[in-house]
C-alpha cells in the first residue's frame, strides 16, 4: 500500500513534530476523539457513510482537468488541475468537515465549533452542521470578517453563528485561540472541528486522512488519463490540509516530486509573510510542535498574506517532518505573484482560483516552464476565488492607479 508511509503518526508524532501541548482540561476529550476516530476508521459502516457523504454532499470525485491553454501559454510540462474548487461550498475544506461532523454525531456531541480565516472552513462547517442538525458557532477574526464578508453571510444563512474575534491580529491564529478557549468550557457536549492538519494529536493525522480522498482520486485519475503519475505536484500551504491531502497518498511514490507553496506576502521580513516552513523555526503553537514564526523568546510573530487562508504563523507537524526528511520542498510566492497567477488562470482557462490556490498556480507555472513537454505537473486547485473577488478588485484598482 503506497499510503502507509504517511499514516504512521507514532504517539501523535511525525518524527520529532506533533504531540499534544494543550491544557489538561482538553486531554480527556482528545483521548476520546482519538479512540472514536480509530474505531470509526476501522468501522466499515462509518467509512461507507463517509464515502456516501463525499459523493452525495461534496459532489466527489472532483475532476482532474487538463489545462490545455495554460499548458500552451507556459510552453513546458503538461499542467493538470485537481478541481477541488468544484466541490460543494467551493473548496477542499468540505472533505474534512463531513468526516468530523460524522465523528461528532458518533460521539453524541450536539454542538460543533470551528475557527476560520478565509471563511471556507467556516462555510464548510456551517454546511455540515446544517446537514446533520448540529448547532454551530464559528470563530473569525474581525480583520477576516472584513475581508471575507460574503462567506460570513453564507455561514449565517446556513444557521451558524459567527463569533467575531478582536484579540491579537484579529485573524486566523486568534480565531484558533478563541475556539480552543470555547472548547475548554464546552468540551462535554461540543466537538471542535479544526480546519487544517494542525493542532494537538489526533487532529493532524485525522484531518490528513479525511483530506486524502484528494490524493487517492488524483492518483487513480492520473493513471487513467496519462498511464502514469505526475512528475511534480504543487499545492499551497497555510496550515497545510489541501497539500497533505494530495501529497499523502503519493508520498511513497518516490518518483513524484512535491512542492508546497507558502505565503511570501510583501517581503521575507518577519511580519511581512506567513512562510512558517521556509522562514520559521521549531516551536509550539496551538497544541503541536512544528515550524512556527516567532521571536527569540517564543512569542508568536505577526504574519501577513493577501490570502486570509494562508495568513497563519504555524503549519502542520507532518509538513515539518516532510521538510526535514527532504521528501517535500517548500517555497514561497508573494502577494503580487499570486494575484498575477490568479489573473492568468482566469484568462487562459476561465477558472478563478482562490487566492490561496493561486500561490500554487504561480509556482507550478514557474516550474513547468523549465520542464519538458512530456512531463506532467499536477496542481491542487484547492478552492474557488468568488470569495476573493472584492479584495482582488480593490487590489487591481490600486495597481491601475499606480501605473497611470
Amino acid at each position, binding site marked *: 500500500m503506497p499510503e502507509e508511509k504517511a499514516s504512521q503518526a507514532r504517539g501523535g508524532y511525525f518524527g520529532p513534530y506533533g504531540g499534544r501541548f494543550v*491544557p*489538561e482540561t482538553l486531554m*480527556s476529550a482528545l483521548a476520546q476523539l482519538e479512540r472514536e476516530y480509530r474505531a470509526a476508521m476501522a468501522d466499515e459502516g462509518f467509512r461507507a457513510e463517509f464515502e456516501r457523504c463525499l459523493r452525495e454532499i461534496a459532489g466527489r470525485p472532483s475532476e482532474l482537468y487538463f489545462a490545455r491553454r495554460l499548458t500552451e501559454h507556459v510552453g513546458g510540462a503538461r499542467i493538470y488541475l485537481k478541481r477541488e474548487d468544484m466541490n460543494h461550498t467551493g473548496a477542499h475544506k468540505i472533505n474534512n468537515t463531513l468526516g468530523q461532523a460524522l465523528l461528532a454525531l458518533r460521539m453524541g456531541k450536539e454542538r460543533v465549533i470551528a475557527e476560520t480565516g478565509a471563511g471556507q472552513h467556516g462555510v464548510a462547517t456551517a454546511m455540515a452542521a446544517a446537514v446533520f442538525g448540529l448547532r454551530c458557532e464559528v470563530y473569525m477574526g474581525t480583520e477576516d470578517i472584513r475581508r471575507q464578508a460574503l462567506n460570513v453571510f453564507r455561514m449565517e444563512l446556513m444557521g451558524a453563528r459567527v463569533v467575531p474575534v478582536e484579540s491579537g491580529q484579529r485573524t486566523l491564529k486568534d480565531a484558533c485561540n478563541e475556539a480552543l478557549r470555547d472548547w*475548554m468550557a464546552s468540551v462535554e457536549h461540543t466537538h471542535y472541528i479544526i480546519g487544517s492538519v494542525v493542532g494537538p494529536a489526533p487532529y493532524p493525522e485525522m484531518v490528513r486522512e479525511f483530506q486524502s480522498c484528494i490524493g487517492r482520486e488524483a492518483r487513480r485519475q492520473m493513471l487513467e488519463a496519462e498511464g502514469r503519475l505526475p512528475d511534480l505536484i504543487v499545492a499551497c500551504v497555510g496550515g497545510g490540509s489541501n497539500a497533505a491531502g494530495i501529497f499523502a497518498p503519493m508520498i511513497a511514490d518516490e518518483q513524484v516530486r512535491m512542492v508546497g507553496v507558502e505565503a511570501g506576502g510583501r517581503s521575507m521580513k518577519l511580519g511581512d509573510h506567513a512562510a512558517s516552513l521556509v522562514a520559521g523555526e521549531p516551536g509550539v503553537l*496551538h497544541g503541536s510542535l512544528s515550524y512556527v514564526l516567532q521571536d527569540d523568546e517564543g512569542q508568536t510573530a505577526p504574519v501577513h498574506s493577501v490570502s486570509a487562508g494562508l495568513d497563519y504563523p504555524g503549519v502542520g507537524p507532518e509538513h515539518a517532518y516532510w521538510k526535514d526528511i527532504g521528501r517535500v520542498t517548500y517555497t514561497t510566492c508573494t502577494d503580487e505573484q499570486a494575484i498575477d497567477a490568479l489573473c492568468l488562470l482566469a484568462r487562459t482557462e476561465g477558472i478563478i482560483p482562490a487566492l490561496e490556490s493561486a500561490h500554487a498556480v504561480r509556482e507550478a507555472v514557474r516550474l513547468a516552464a523549465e520542464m519538458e513537454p512530456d512531463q506532467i505537473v499536477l496542481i491542487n486547485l484547492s478552492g474557488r476565488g468568488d470569495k476573493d473577488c472584492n479584495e482582488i478588485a480593490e487590489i487591481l484598482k490600486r495597481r491601475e492607479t499606480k501605473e497611470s
Partner: protein
Amino acid sequence: MTDLSDNRLVKVFSELRAAGKKALVPFLTAGHPDLQTTEAILIDLERRGVRVAELGIPFSDPIADGPTIQASYTEALAAGVTSQAVLEMVRRWRAGGAGLALVAMVSYSIVFRCRPEVYLRSAADAGFDGLIIPDLPLEEAGNLEPLAAADGLANVMLIAPTTPPRRRVEIARHSRGFIYFISVAGITGERERLPEDTIRAVGELRRHTDTPVCVGFGISNPQMVAAVCEVADGAIVGSAIVRRISQHKDLPTDQLVAKVGEFVGGLLEPIA
C-alpha cells in the same frame, strides 16, 4: 529523583501544614503594568503574610487564560516586557531578601523556544521555586521532570474537572510542590461560586496523595477562599487581582500597591 526538601515551596507547605494553616496563592502578571510595580506588589504581599505567589510570564497566545489575564499579557508584551526582563526582576527582588515561594506560570512555547534546560536553569538561578506549564500535560512532561528536579525546581501539574479518576492519581504522583486543581472546565476568570463537585473531588484526591492541593480558576472573594480551604491546602486567586490592577493601573505605584494589598488582605482574613 532529586530530593526537593530544600525547595522553598515544599518547605512553606510543610510549615503551613504543621501549623494547621492554609495558603492563599495570589497570581500576578509579570510586568503588568510594569516590572517595578510587580516587584513592589510582591514585597507588599509578603509583608501582609502571603507565603506563596504565582507569576504569569506574558505570552502572545495564552489559550488557558480568560480575557482578563490575556489582556494583561497583551499589555505587558506591548510595553516591551520580555521573559528575560522578568527573570532579572525576580533576581533583583530575591537579592533584596524576599522569602516567599514563587512559582512561574509559563507557556511551553516560551520554555521550548529558550530550550527547556536553559530556561529552567535561568528560572532557578533567578529565584523561582517552581513552574506551572499549563500546556505541558503528563504525556509531554517526561523530559522536563528530571531537568526541573536537577535544578531544584518543583514542577507543579494540573488536574482538571475533566481528568478521569485514575489519571488524577497519576498526575498527583508526578506533581511537585503542590497540585493545581482546576475548579471548573474552562478558562481562568472570576466566578460567582464554586461547583460543589470541586469540594468533593478535592477531598477524594486528598485520600490518594500527601502532596498539597491548591484550587484555582474562578476564585474571587474571601467566602470562596474559605470554602476552598475547608478541603484544600490553598486557594489560587488570579483574575480578580489582575482585574484590580488593570482598574487602578494609572494610580501612582504606592497607591496601586495599596489597593492590591487591601484586596489580598481581605482574601487572607478567612485563613489567618
